[in-house]
């Protein structure tokens, strides 16, 4: 297994985790109408949720891995990296954007894959990072999801994606668009092997990610008050030229319209997924 390039000690290694956490000791809550100040420690002890209003602060892939897995997990496919095949340049070159994203996040791309156990049941999880070019989906995201699904098929385990993305990565043009087709095709393969796929949506999940793997879970669920949609709110507003209704494109809105199975508080996330893993496995084995 050449791409199992590193074994990560989840709970004790702190270098890569907490990278979505705000700088400094004090952190002003971004929850609507809250604005209270919390210390980083207070947040950390409360699953990075505001102790006052329960606002779920955005966290990164490794934070979720640390939260969910029973201790150790194995990071996979980190050796796959983006390539500027188009020679894309707007105000900045794509290469420069990548370089600053590497420096800023210390991540190899907008998704990380890990294999481990939750409540003693094996699972492969791919989790996105919004800090890496807006969690945009390019060829690397597609390929890592693809390989993660192969890994799940190999060990006959359920598969989960934690989405957090502004959509497709424009700098890879049609290549990024085709990742929607690639990941959906791959999920069809997983489904044909009768292995469950859990799609967990976090703030924000929009664009091509929503219109492909995020909406294709056997179970679709989300964190409270996450922005989830196809078109971004700004684009819709510009198109229809009127204000958007209160609560539009939130997790609660999607649940109400029939596109989510449930919403889960981050504090209950591990147990909920543990329950799913238990319920989707036969006890007669």
């Amino acid at each position, binding site marked *: 297994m050449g791409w199992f390039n590193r074994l990560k000690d989840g709970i004790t290694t702190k270098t890569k985790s907490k990278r979505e956490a705000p700088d400094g000791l004090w952190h002003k809550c971004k929850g609507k109408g809250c604005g209270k100040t919390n210390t980083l420690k207070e947040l950390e002890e409360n699953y990075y949720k505001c102790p006052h209003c329960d606002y779920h602060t955005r966290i990164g892939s490794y934070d979720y891995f640390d939260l969910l897995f029973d201790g150790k997990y194995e990071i996979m496919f980190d050796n796959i990296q983006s390539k500027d095949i188009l020679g894309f340049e707007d105000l900045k070159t794509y290469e420069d954007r990548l370089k600053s994203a590497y420096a800023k996040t210390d991540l190899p791309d907008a998704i990380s894959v890990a294999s481990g156990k939750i409540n003693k049941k094996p699972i492969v999880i791919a989790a996105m990072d919004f800090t890496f070019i807006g969690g945009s989906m390019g060829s690397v995201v597609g390929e890592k999801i693809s390989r993660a699904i192969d890994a799940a098929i190999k060990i006959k385990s359920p598969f989960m994606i934690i989405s957090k993305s502004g959509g497709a990565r424009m700098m890879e043009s049609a290549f990024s668009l085709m990742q*929607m087709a690639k990941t959906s095709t791959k999920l069809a393969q997983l489904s044909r092997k009768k292995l469950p796929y859990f799609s967990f949506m976090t703030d924000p999940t929009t664009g091509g990610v929503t219109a492909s793997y995020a909406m294709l879970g056997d179970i679709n669920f989300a964190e409270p008050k996450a922005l989830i949609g196809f078109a971004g709110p700004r684009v819709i507003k510009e198109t229809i030229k009127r204000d958007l209704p209160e609560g539009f494109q939130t997790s609660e809105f999607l649940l109400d319209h029939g596109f989510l199975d449930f919403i889960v508080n981050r504090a209950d996330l591990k147990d909920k997924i543990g329950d799913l893993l238990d319920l989707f496995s036969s006890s007669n084995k």
Partner: protein
Amino acid sequence: MVFLEFEKPLEKLYDQLEKLRQVGEESDIDVTDKIKVIEDKIKARSKEIFSNLNGWQKVQLSRHPNRPYTLHYLTNMCKKFVELHGDRNYSDDKAIVGGIGKINGDPIVFIGHQKGINTKMRQYRNFGMANPEGYRKALRLMKMAERFGYPVVCLIDTPGAYPGIEAEERGQAEAIARNLFEMAQLKVPILCYVIGEGASGGALGIGLGDKVFMLENTWYSVISPESCSSILWRSWDHKEEAAEVLKLTADNMLEFGLIDDIVKEPLGGAHVDHAKMVKILKSHIKKQIEELSTLSPDELIEHRLEKYGKMGAFTVKKTSS
């Protein structure tokens, strides 16, 4: 006829041609030779203009108001074509049409984005921007095709899926995602043709298939040049540049291996000779279906998986640890 900026040199020639034809019809003067001279001039000039088009010019051609749209192809390629409406769930989307027709005796289920031919119809068709019902109607028709073992042909021509409140309420993202998931494992051949604009998820929502082709003067991209300009340059003024950097032409797409081939248009573009374009597309579809019909459902699905599995450009670093 409408002439785009770079087509302007042709306008006078087409005017002369039209006048000569009128003279020929209204009098006994033989204008055959004169018409031939003008037609040769049009050919030569078109060759010059069309041999070296940039990305933005291709985008403009793909949106040419005289370009044939989906229903024109369907009603002219098939001796009989019956349009089928509705998603059996909510409504009938006007921006995606579908139905059943025959080419050379074989039934085919057709699906395509539909744009309007005049101001009123453009609004009626929502400018080719589908709501979730359009994608769900498409899926219903694909499932019917699967039941009867008929191939599916999709014609793509959209500036994008519609970004509206109701579209979100009824699950635009889910509708597109579901189509991708189902098209990946449909048991009958799927052929896709970009006949105009291929913008983003709205195009891909009926665009996953065994073979994907682009007509010569079309584009396919994750975002329109205008939106790309507005997001990356924070202004609408860089659409020409955006069209270049997005590498969205049929030539680019073929070079990247993201489409299977390019379908040549008549000289001067599909809009100057509808009849010829219809003929070209019809014979292309016929040939492709013949080739794909030799594959079993399992082989089709296997090949589709393999085809899309390979799409992507990345580097695999040697593991250091």
